[in-house]
């Protein structure tokens, strides 16, 4: 056990706890806020694992933009304050969901844990330059494809909202 291990376990426990709250809380916006906490602590995990750039990207894109959009969407689709029981699916469905979740955890742990040995690995110092070089060297074609994908997602989102705006019923000044 090194300091890194201890810090990581702290972050990991926090992340798992926040994630659990995010999927079980009965308040709509709180779920999104717990997700923020989860993603933030996961960014901390990345820092501990030496992936500084990934952690920063996580903060900038996930926390700074994606979550903002999620909260936005929640607020646009009615997000009243207070507890609501109509957020969860029926009990039998949740029971199966819990089984599925637990078995997924067990499956992944069973498959991956034997792969990682007990031996400690060295965490290299900052790898930003290396990661950048890899993105624009080895991975440049996937990178370009990704930019095309982003563009098409942008256009797709725009078209979806346009189509609905033309076909749907007006919803009283909530348009953005």
């Amino acid at each position, binding site marked *: 056990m090194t300091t890194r291990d201890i810090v990581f376990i702290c972050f990991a426990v926090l992340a798992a706890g926040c994630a659990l709250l995010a999927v079980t809380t009965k308040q709509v916006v709180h779920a999104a806020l717990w997700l923020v906490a989860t993603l933030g602590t996961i960014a901390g995990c990345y820092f501990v694992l030496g992936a500084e750039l990934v952690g920063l990207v996580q903060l900038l894109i996930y926390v700074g933009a994606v979550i903002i959009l999620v909260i936005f969407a929640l607020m646009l689709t009615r997000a009243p304050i207070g507890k609501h029981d109509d957020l969860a699916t029926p009990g039998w*469905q949740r029971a*199966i969901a819990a089984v*599925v979740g637990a*078995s997924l955890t067990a*499956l992944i742990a069973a498959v991956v844990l034997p792969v990682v040995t007990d031996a400690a690995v060295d965490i290299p110092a900052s790898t930003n330059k290396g990661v950048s070089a890899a993105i624009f060297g080895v991975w440049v074609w996937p990178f370009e494809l990704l930019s095309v994908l982003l563009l098409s997602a942008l256009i797709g989102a725009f078209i979806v909202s346009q189509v609905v705006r033309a076909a749907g019923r007006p919803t009283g000044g909530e348009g953005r």
Partner: protein
Amino acid sequence: MTSSTASTFAQLLVAVPVLAAVVSLILARSAPGASRAVSAVTAVLGFLVSVGLLVNVPAEGFAAATTVGPLQVGELKVPLELLVDRPFAVVALAVAFVVACIQLYSVWYMATDPRGAVFQAIVSMFGAAMLLVVLSGDLLLTLIGWEVMGWGSYLLIGHHTFRRSARRAAMKAFLLTRFADIGFVLGIVALAAQTGTTRLAVIFEHFGEGAAAPTAALVLMLIGIAGKSGLIPFHDWLPDAMEGPTPASALIHGATMVAAGTVVVGRLFPLYAESTDARLVLAVLAAATTVYTAVMAFTQNDVKKLLAYSTMSQVALMLGALAAAPAEEHGAAGLDHLVSHAVFKALLFLGAGWLAAIGGGTAFALLRGRMKGWGVLPVSFGLGLAALAGIPPTIGFVSKDGVVAAAREGTTTGAHIVLYATYLTVFLTAMYATRAYLVLVSGDPEEPDHHDDSHTPPPTGSSYTLVAGVIGTLGLLSLVGGAAFLVQGAHIDPTVAAVSVGIALLGVLVSWALSRRPGGDPATVLSESWARATQVNLGTDRVYAGFAAGVVALARVVVRLDNAVVDALPRGLASGATATGGAADRAHRGVPSTGLLAVLSGGLIVLVLGVALWR
């Protein structure tokens, strides 16, 4: 081999008209006067340069000159160089001279035309292209000049854009020559592919060293040459091209486009000399064309049309000479006739332009007897017609004698065909030349039934001096130019000369005798319906239209096949995918969250199974 002065002159000779065209085209809108002056002055300058080239060109062998530097396209070497020897220096001189004459003449003829400056700029470009073809030492340069001429002919023939017939004629010329150029390009590609270069000198060497003559490539190139030179079956665009202004006709017929085919065959003569088959094809085409068009020329009722048919006849004669001449002659007879034809045909067309200015049109009915009393015009025009008919001592007599001699010396089947066709043509040419002269100097003209404003008024004052100077110079050259050939080394065999002159005089006599009949026009001896048919070239145009309709119909069939058969598979795939999607869409109407549950559970089971089996 290297003569730097000659090289410099060769480079200048191409560069000057190109620059002139660019400058005058830029100036054409803003300063038309300056633009015209640039065109005319540079044309004269170009003539002087061509004289310099002829003086400096080595008597034996070639002088090479670079242009924009060599290209290396993969395996292919493209030197882009110019190559000039003595015969082609003479041809270049003739081209530059005719272009200069036409530019000076256009200063008067196109004075009232609002787009005259543009016209003259295009003439400069056209001249540059022709000079490039003449001086080219590289098949690619030849092709460039060849195609620029095709484009230029489109612009010149369609100069009167307001006339539908002019637009149609321009389009027809362009399409026909482009169509024929397919063969030309394929031939060039074949030659370049076989030798790995487009450099003429290397190609000659390659095939000179025992390689089999590239008959297929040469025949392919003949198709393009037939298109440009108006050989059967591409013989219908030239008469229609008379829709262009008269100087344009003089340019196209005199020394440039039509003669370009002769220049290329002359340039590649070492190759053609090796290939009897290609030369036989050329001989048959040339012989058929020269006789056919001479017959057509006789009954034309428009002076420019008559000249157009005579051009085709004469050009076919040049090509015939090249097809018939023995290999060691180097095709000199054909090139000589090209030069002499350039002089007298330019003279005849420019004279026809003057006549049109006098009579208000180019139909014989309007021009009957109009030529009397215009000083230098009847004399020069008569000399031009005499040269056309090959009456001694004109320039035409000397060069045509060379053609006959070449055909006689040839031993191939083609040479015999050409020889008899030439005799027949000499007779027919004399007939229609005589008819043209007699009609123009006798009888009373009809008044034009409508006054066409687009025609230039007859020259007066200084423009008269200019036009008369140009026409007179050309006339004088037609008379005495033959001597130049004799000095150059041509010789006249008295027997040959006697036979051909005899035939020509017979033609003159017959024509004159027919003109004694009432009406005064020898052509009236033929039936009215025949005369009408010849006005439309025996309906060749309709044959072309029919051919085009056939191609369009075939294309429709192909499109239909493409739609119905080839595209059926992708279309079927698309509609199949749509149908499958529709079916899935109808099947997929459950509650989303239970659907999600099923999907994730199923996915998990698959994963577990996969992992378990993999272990």
